[in-house]
Structures are given as C-alpha cells and as structure tokens.
C-alpha cells in the first residue's frame, strides 16, 4: 500500500525567500505524485503532478517539484514566496493503473513573515 510522509508540520519563511517543502513516499512501483494547496476554508487546488517523463515538473503560481526515485522524494520548491502563498500544502501519491485512489500526507502549514 502506498503512503506519504511530510516531515515538516509547519514552516515559516520571509516574503521573498525561497521555499522547499519535503515529501517522501512509499510505493512499490512508479507512482503518480501530486501537490495540492488548501487555503483556509477552501477545497484543495492542484499545483502540479508527475506521472512520467521529465523529473522536474512545473506547476501553477511559480511552483516546481522534482521527482527523485532514488530518494523516494517529490519536494516542492518556489524561488521567491509571496504573502498569498500562506496555506496548507499536501503531497499525495496515486497508484499506477486501476482505480485512481490518492493517499495524502498530513500536510505542511506555510506561514509567511512580511
């Protein structure tokens, strides 16, 4: 069964600083990997996803993520954060083929200092 670990429950960065959110997954085959963002009182919005090809994936709002099979990681990065990036970020893994079941990590809450 697949699982996801997001080691950082809460991260605080200054506006304009770079950001990296960590995600480690466990799955026996090539996974589908996703990053979603959730603003307070809102549903989840897809930032980006990986399922094959180039291991560096570009997403919306200036985010990118890199799939590293050897480290079972899919870390999310942004070179310069904006105050509007403050939110909860979830990494998720989906099984290759079959029913599209997503397993989510516990999330990382991002706070931006002005």
């Amino acid at each position: 069964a697949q699982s996801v670990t997001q080691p950082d429950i809460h991260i605080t960065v200054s506006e304009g600083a770079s950001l990296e959110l960590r995600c480690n997954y466990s799955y026996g085959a090539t996974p589908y990997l996703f990053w979603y963002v959730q603003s307070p009182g809102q549903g989840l919005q897809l930032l980006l996803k990986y399922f094959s090809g180039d291991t560096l994936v570009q997403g919306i709002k200036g985010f990118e993520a890199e799939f590293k099979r050897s480290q079972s990681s899919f870390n999310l990065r942004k070179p310069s954060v904006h105050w509007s990036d403050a939110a909860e970020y979830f990494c998720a893994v989906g099984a290759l083929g079959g029913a599209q079941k997503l397993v989510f990590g516990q999330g990382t809450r991002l706070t931006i200092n002005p």
Partner: protein
Amino acid sequence: EAGVAQSPRYKIIEKRQSVAFWCNPISGHATLYWYQQILGQGPKLLIQFQNNGVVDDSQLPKDRFSAERLKGVDSTLKIQPAKLEDSAVYLCASSKGLAGGETQYFGPGTRLLVL
C-alpha cells in the same frame, strides 16, 4: 466551467443525530470521491464512484456512513448516528475518469461539528 459544488458549508449537530451532505460534480465527470479530513490531517478517501457504481468503499465505516450516486451525477453522503469523532471536513472531488494520473477537482467542503 463551474467547479464542484457542496452543501451545506457548515453543520453543527448533537451526537447520535443524523446528517447528510450533498455534492454536485463538474459536468461530465464520471468519477466522484468523498474524503474525510480531520483537523491536522490530510484527506482520507471514504468512497469512490464511477458513474453510479461504487469502485472503492474500503475505508467507509459502513455501520454509520452511507453514500449514493443514483443517477451518476450528484451524490449524498449520510452519517447516522453521528459520533464525536466524525467532526471533520467532508470533501467531495470529481475527475473525468479512472485513468491513472487524472486530476481530481475538489469542492470547498462541508465542515461538520458533532457536539
């Protein structure tokens, strides 16, 4: 294109009462999901429909939770009777199909508080 709609947005009930949530997916999306998100945790899949058939309900507490999608469009999730530990946000999502890597689009959720 309209997104996934859910109602109500908030609900407060006493334990042992019943409650129902409604979801209308994006038009044309065959697959519908209900997730439970407990405070401080990531969403957990409760049930997944493909059209009006159940694909996966392995994590649905069937002694108290039920869900249906009778006409393959909108869906209802019911809890009867509710317990304190059912306090959570219930998220509905939809996708075009079942293919791997399909994007799931989420609604705003229903926040349930059981007292």
